[in-house]
């Protein structure tokens, strides 16, 4: 039926995508390279956070506690480094483990004790936000900021061969280990979801629990694994904020990035690769906010600049809603294309005054 129309529509869509990509590349090439580099760096929490959201919601649990899990990661990374003076990588590892534990606790509270998901997520987020403040005061005598010269940030790495390539080398080389790890995690999440038995089971659980259960898949086990993994990714994302960019922990450091990460996964329709590029866009919006703030000569209102990432978030959510609606419109238009004459005849029977 109607394949010609479908084909031509596909070509139009491909052409549009190509035009957008070309324009985007041209625009990006004209941006200062430092801005692009910091975009890539600042995208990291969104990359990892959106992977956390994707893993959980593909398994059928909307993980609304990512914000709290990220915050735990930020705090634990700094706390562990402050107490032990170990290598920063140990901090990132500790953050991952802490996020994982929180994810597992979350899973048990939700799946075993059957606490309402929304209430549980609210409780976890509020609890973590206040618990970090409490421990900062009681354990570290710090108010608002936990910083110490002994806390080192993650060192930047130079990629051996890529470093030599002009432009690309500047763009891709010289980030810290968590940034590269986040890229690897995108591939890992994709492979797990779409190439492994575990991932297939996970997606089956997320889409139709009854179907998975009837063939003997242990739903609870899959969801506990997924939430634990989700928590680990979120914890790692949090460590990037505290020891990747700076080397300190600040009250409520995540500042809504966990929620934005959920937006990223929604915008990408829970596809890991698409989420990666969406996250880069959010990284750009954040980098742009910093970049423009540092240029008072442009005389842009500072409040607006600060809100740039949030504006991007709202725009993304609007686009998601529009896309879902566009899908409906498209189906309706296909129907009209097929039965147009009959449809208009029926429409004309419409009574006056409607």
């Amino acid at each position, binding site marked *: 039926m109607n394949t010609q129309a479908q084909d031509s529509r596909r070509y139009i869509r491909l052409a549009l995508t190509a035009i957008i990509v070309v324009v985007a590349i041209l625009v990006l090439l004209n941006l200062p390279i430092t801005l692009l580099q910091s975009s890539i760096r600042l995208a990291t929490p969104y990359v990892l956070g959106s992977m956390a959201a994707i893993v959980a919601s593909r398994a059928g649990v909307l993980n609304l506690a990512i914000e709290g899990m990220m915050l735990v990661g930020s705090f634990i990374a700094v706390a562990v480094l402050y107490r032990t003076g170990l290598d920063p990588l140990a901090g990132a590892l500790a953050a991952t483990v802490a996020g994982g534990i929180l994810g597992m606790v979350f899973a048990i509270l939700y799946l075993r004790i059957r606490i309402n998901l929304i209430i549980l997520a609210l409780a976890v987020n509020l609890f973590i936000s206040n618990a970090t403040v409490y421990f900062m005061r009681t354990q570290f005598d710090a108010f608002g900021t936990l910083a110490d010269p002994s806390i080192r940030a993650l060192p930047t790495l130079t990629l051996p061969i890529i470093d030599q390539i002009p432009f690309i080398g500047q763009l891709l080389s010289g980030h810290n280990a968590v940034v590269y790890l986040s890229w690897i995690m995108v591939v890992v999440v994709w492979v797990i979801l779409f190439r492994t038995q575990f991932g*297939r089971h996970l997606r089956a659980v997320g*889409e139709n629990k009854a179907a*998975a259960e009837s063939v003997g*898949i242990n739903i609870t086990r899959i969801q506990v694994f997924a939430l634990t993994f989700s928590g680990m990714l979120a914890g790692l994302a949090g460590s990037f904020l505290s020891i990747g960019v700076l080397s300190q922990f600040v009250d409520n450091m995540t500042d809504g990035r966990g929620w934005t990460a959920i937006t990223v996964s929604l915008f990408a329709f829970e596809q890991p690769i698409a989420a990666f590029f969406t996250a880069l866009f959010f990284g750009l919006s954040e980098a742009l906010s910093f970049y423009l703030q540092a240029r008072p000569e442009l005389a842009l209102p500072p409040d607006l600049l600060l809100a740039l990432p949030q504006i991007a978030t709202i725009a993304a959510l609007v686009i998601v809603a529009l896309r879902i609606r566009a899908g409906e*419109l498209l189906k309706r238009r296909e129907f009209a294309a097929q039965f147009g004459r009959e*449809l208009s005849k029926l*429409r004309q029977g419409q*009574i006056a005054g409607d």
Partner: protein
Amino acid sequence: MSNAIELQHIRKYFASSQVLACDDVSLSVESGEVHAIVGENGAGKTTLMSILYGLLTPDEGQILIKDSPVRITHPNDAIRNGIGMVHQHFKLVPSFTIAQNIMLGIEPNRAGFINVNSEAEQVRNLAESFGLPVNPDLPVREISVGMQQRVEILKILQRNAQILILDEPTAVLTPQEVREFLTVVRRLAGTGRTILFITHKLAEVKAIADRVTTMRRGRNVGTHFAKDQTIRDMANLMVGRVVTLTVEKGPAHPGETVLQAENLLVAGADGIPAVFGASLDVRAGEILGVAGVSGNGQTELVEAIVGMRPVDGGTIRYLGQNITHALVRERREAGLAHIPEDRLTTGLNLTTNLDENVVVTSYQHKPYSQQGIFSFAPIRALAQEIIDKFAIKSARVGEPIKTLSGGNLQKIVLGRELKGDPKLIIANQPTRGLDVGSIEFVHKTLIEARDKGAAVLLVSVELDEILALSDRIAVMFAGKVLAVLDAKEATEEKLGLLMAGSLELHEANAERAHV
């Protein structure tokens, strides 16, 4: 011959609903036999099969497979013992392909990585060896219901099931699909597999089963050879008393046209027209049955007629008046009654009591309220009146209704809707999920209303019901009324073809023959 399965003294009590679902049930099934299990709703058929498949654990009793006792506490145990089950509601993952659904849980893999090629290959071989061809790469959400059922059957065959449990397998199929399905069942039994199937369609039992077990109120009331039993015998055994299978009704005396729908255009939930140029009319004193495979626009048609869904084109006339865009209340005040498809969510409010449920359509009038304040005495009187008139056994005035059975709930809906002798009754699937006794009651009530001069529009996916009650029969397909037949000239065969939309095909062939 050896027994494939033997169930001994199975007992299952549900404490939460205080129902003894299985009461000392024993049953033995031979290898290679097609064994039907029939019974009214709530007779314990599905509970018994769920116990066999490990979804429920019995309180007492044991299960023997090939004469040795086994413990089945989880579907995995059942699968290991060669038992597979096709559930009434299919358990498929819509975005997965046919192959991915069939192989779910048993994917060929190396170190956890799925071997996609071997997966498709295995499915193709399996489908070929049983003569049930499928395209392994099609996503399940794009295939027909009949094909989905085939996928479910292949899914359990891939797990080497020797015993297949089928829960109401024909409920969702067209008559032609049913016939194909029955041959598949026969072929599977021919390979030595044992088929246990739950149904309430006794004609199918006669057509396919070797033996039939009848259950009533959690007990096995007899296992017989199907060929020795008539449909009437089985029905009587199911209900425990003599039932009249044919609905007794006199000839219709159709009067003026009450409802006239012309070229209706109604959008479904996704915005695509679900009713697409449907026209029909119902006259006073007749029952117009609307047959069709579910999902061909019947629900939307009904919702448009009762005013719950906006009409995009066409007109609806009620006693000559245009009501296309009238409000639900305006239509009801004019004498339209609606027995909705889903009594649990649309028909009744289960979270409140009987009184509120019966007065909800007339609370704004005297004597039930005055100046916006309820008068409780007349409301209670109304509730009592409905209880008495319709013999709603366990209902009490002022009491909650959520513990009542489906039959009693439907009686409440009927009592409310038929009060005050409406001129037009729209009944959508009025007997869905009811037991034989309640079905009989609903049918009688509708015919009584007809004889009192009401116009009745009956929508049902049960062909038997349509054939038994209707004076004229309209068949819906793809949002259109394909044909309206006189009930006398309608046969199951003819309706089945129309329901599959093949009238167009016939006409096209006829035209070609003329040229």
